[in-house]
């Protein structure tokens, strides 16, 4: 019994830390196509047709981004991660194909390259 409890506790601990292993590879060049495309995809999300619909806003898990909207970001997010040398299969392994995890990974790469300290004189 003790063993079972310890195993469950251990599994929960490692599951909680799983996202920490996602690599963030720094890119020096902000002007890469992948960075530009991800930026544009994020900006396009604020177009009226891409905003959360009234139906999406009534969903139980709102404000979690809907699958429809995640799908709009996904290609550019994958492209940005791949531009750091990471393969598609590695992305799927690390994230288990979770769209939100992939977008967050790409966001981390984008933020790493556009954080204020990167451009101090």
């Amino acid at each position: 019994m003790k063993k079972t409890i310890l195993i469950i506790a251990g599994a929960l601990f490692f599951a909680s830390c799983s996202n920490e292993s996602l690599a963030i590879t720094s890119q020096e060049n902000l002007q890469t196509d992948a960075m530009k495309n991800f930026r544009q995809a994020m900006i396009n999300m604020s177009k009226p047709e891409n905003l959360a619909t009234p139906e999406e806003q009534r969903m139980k898990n709102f404000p979690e981004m809907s699958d429809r909207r995640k799908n709009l970001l996904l290609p550019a997010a994958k492209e940005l991660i791949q531009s750091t040398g990471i393969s598609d299969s590695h992305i799927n392994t690390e994230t288990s194909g979770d769209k939100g995890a992939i977008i967050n990974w790409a966001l981390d790469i984008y933020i790493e390259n556009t954080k204020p300290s990167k451009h101090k004189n």
Partner: protein
Amino acid sequence: MKNIISLFLLCFNALLFAQTNHFKITNFSSHDISFVAVSMNLSEPLMNCVPIIYNEIPAVLPAGHSISYSQINDSLVNDLPIRYWHLVGGSFEETYDLTLAPLSTSDTDLVSWHQVIIYAPNGQDYTLGGGCMGGGIYNITAGGIKAELNLISGVADVVITDD
């Protein structure tokens, strides 16, 4: 045996409520944007949201830049450091200077990022996110900018663009 189960439940509770999700804000607009990030306890509506924790002095995110915060107590070593956090704890309010002391984990573990106050170029402030009484506003077009707050797998993500 009871002790082990209690310890396990305590650990599980800590994992469940620990403030681990990030708050990310990306400023695609051509304006420097000031913001206040608000972290609160929406899981206890009867407690009217407390504790509520927010950065007392708005942080300024330059045009074209982005930033990410995780734990409130780590914000001092961030690329856009935040030093002063205001805590509303129900019967009291207090401002913490992180250079002197961190906030208590009994408060920070109960809260997660739910709101952001954006100061638009026209000087007006706009609140995005969920409120203590439910509901909330998640996107605005005002004051020369568009701003939106989403959760992406639980991570609060704020995007600001030019109108």
